[in-house]
């Protein structure tokens, strides 16, 4: 198998990429094509092979079989010249602790692609890092900032970032998103990883879901969102649990139906004064029907969300509703579903974390 040469369209391409550590299969045949200028996320649980994949791109480790092209050259052949055009943020940071952040960054600058004067100070100001502090006194988040600076400072054509936002507070995460946007606006490509989707979904255009050394799914974040499950919740007044369940259960795409009685109805009315019943806090103010029957809460999932929302809303519109909530699609859940689906084919040799490195 030979990959097309000098396509220029893809910053990273792999075909049939396999990496074994002894008898442990860390990557079991990865085919990826990361378009130039996009933000591509790879997500997966610990041990899925994310770090292994990134180390292969940097020629820190070598593939057992398969092909890799990074910026149109194999990492091995590209050597230091290729790596001058890559910025790497390792998943596990081991920095020299006795130096100041500035000294360490200058040292990295001396072995990376050319860094413009003032660039390190500019990035440190953006992220809020004190460059004159000794590395050993930096918090985990501040060390991560230092690591981000050394990855971004020479404006590399490709950024390989292993869990870039881990340890960062939300404000700095936003700064990171801004840096990522600026980079892609410059035509730089970003390949980043996370074990949770929420950290990538804002930054990434596309996502590959990695599980036990294989890509389970590749999709754009929009596609994932479309296919993701939404949670819906309605509260009705005056119908029985069975009546509500029957009305909702027949709607296509509805699943995991769960009804329960929040308020028992007329018999015990003295205990349930209007407006203070649980589940009516977000009520519409139309409490007129409240005394006429039991209050029922019904929770359900809407899968294939875009397709299911319309029929669901249409079907419940005729009910005596007190509350209606349809949540944002939960991408995390979508991903967990994908992990679980591939559980049906257990791999012969599950990766063990100590041999596969910090995956």
């Amino acid at each position, binding site marked *: 198998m030979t990959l097309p040469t000098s396509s220029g369209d893809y910053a990273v391409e792999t075909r049939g990429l396999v990496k074994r550590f002894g008898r442990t299969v860390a990557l079991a045949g990865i085919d990826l094509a990361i378009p130039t200028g996009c933000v591509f996320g790879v997500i997966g649980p610990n041990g899925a092979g994310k770090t292994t994949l990134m180390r292969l791109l*940097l020629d820190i*480790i070598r593939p057992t079989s398969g092909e890799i092209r990074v910026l149109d050259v194999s990492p091995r052949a590209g050597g*230091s010249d290729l790596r*001058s055009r890559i910025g*790497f943020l390792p998943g596990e940071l*081991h920095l020299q602790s006795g130096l100041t952040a500035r000294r360490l960054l200058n040292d990295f600058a*001396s072995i*990376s692609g050319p860094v413009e004067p003032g660039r390190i100070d500019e990035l440190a100001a953006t992220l809020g890092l004190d460059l004159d502090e000794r590395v050993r006194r930096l918090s985990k988040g501040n060390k991560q900032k230092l690591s981000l600076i050394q990855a971004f400072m020479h404006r590399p054509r490709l950024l390989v970032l292993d869990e870039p936002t881990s340890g960062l507070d939300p404000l700095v995460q936003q700064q990171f998103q801004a840096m990522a946007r600026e980079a892609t606006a410059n035509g730089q490509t970003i390949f980043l990883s996370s074990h949770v989707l929420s950290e990538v979904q804002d930054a990434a255009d596309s996502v590959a879901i990695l599980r036990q050394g294989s890509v389970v799914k590749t999709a754009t974040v929009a596609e994932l969102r479309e296919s993701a499950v939404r949670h819906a919740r309605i509260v009705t007044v005056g119908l029985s649990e069975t009546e509500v369940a029957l009305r909702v259960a027949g709607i296509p795409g509805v699943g995991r139906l769960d009804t329960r009685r929040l308020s028992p109805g007329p018999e015990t009315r003295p205990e349930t004064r209007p407006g203070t019943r649980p589940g009516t806090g977000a009520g519409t103010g139309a409490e007129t029907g409240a005394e006429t029957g039991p209050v029922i809460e019904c929770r359900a999932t809407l899968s294939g969300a875009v397709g299911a929302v319309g029929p669901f809303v249409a079907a419940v519109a005729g009910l005596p509703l007190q509350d209606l909530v349809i949540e944002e699609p939960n991408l995390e859940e979508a991903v967990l579903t994908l992990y679980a689906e591939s559980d049906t084919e257990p791999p012969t040799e599950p990766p063990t974390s100590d*041999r596969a490195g910090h995956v």
Partner: protein
Amino acid sequence: MSSSLPLFAKVARDTWPGLVGWAAAIAGTTLVYLPLHRSFGDASIAQVIESMPQALIKALNYDLMASGPGYVQATIYGLLGFAFLTIAAVGWGGQAVGGDEEAGRLELTLAHAVSRSRVVLERALAMTLKVIILAGVTLALVLALNGPSDLGIDVGNALETSVIFAALALLPGTMALCVGAWTGRRVPALVAGAAVAVLGYTLNALGNQDDNLEWMHTLSPYHWAYGNQPLINGVDWGGFALLAGLSALLVALAVVGLNRRDVSV
């Protein structure tokens, strides 16, 4: 920042305090030992030596202690200076790749625009230079005390001895570098380096004992360096070539070793 040897420059900047410490240790030892030669007087030292077991005298090369050059050879170049310089070199060699990798730092260095060969070669160069500096410090002190302590050492021989002193210490250092480059571990690197030094010293000491064991000298780097009594007779350049050649070979093997394997797994 725009150094042509960035990794070498970094080692130099990061480790000069350690170098100063080793220089102080060697200087202190030299300053304590060399003046003793005069205050004891040749006769009293000879008495001390006569009271020692013959085998120990041979093992320590103390049979030449009576002369100034013999005394300096036996105490500094042959024993304490040798021990300090060897320990320093093995430590630096073990740290250069194996220790750096085990600490998890080599990964990020190699992710930058440097080749693995460059990492090995620049760090080997830094180690070599530091060993030469320490040998130079020793030489300066020996020459400074030569007159005051009545050592009677020929300056040319002192210079040559310092060259082979450095070469002798570099061999275990490059061995540590090489084993670190192949294994990515610090302890095996240190053990291998120390083994070269200890075995060399032991083979020499055993070879000194009697004619039946003299063949051991041919296997001893220590004997290649000092068998000729360089402070008295000048250096045996064949021995120097052997030491320097082996060190160069070990550095080349280190380059091969680091280039052919996965890092930090």
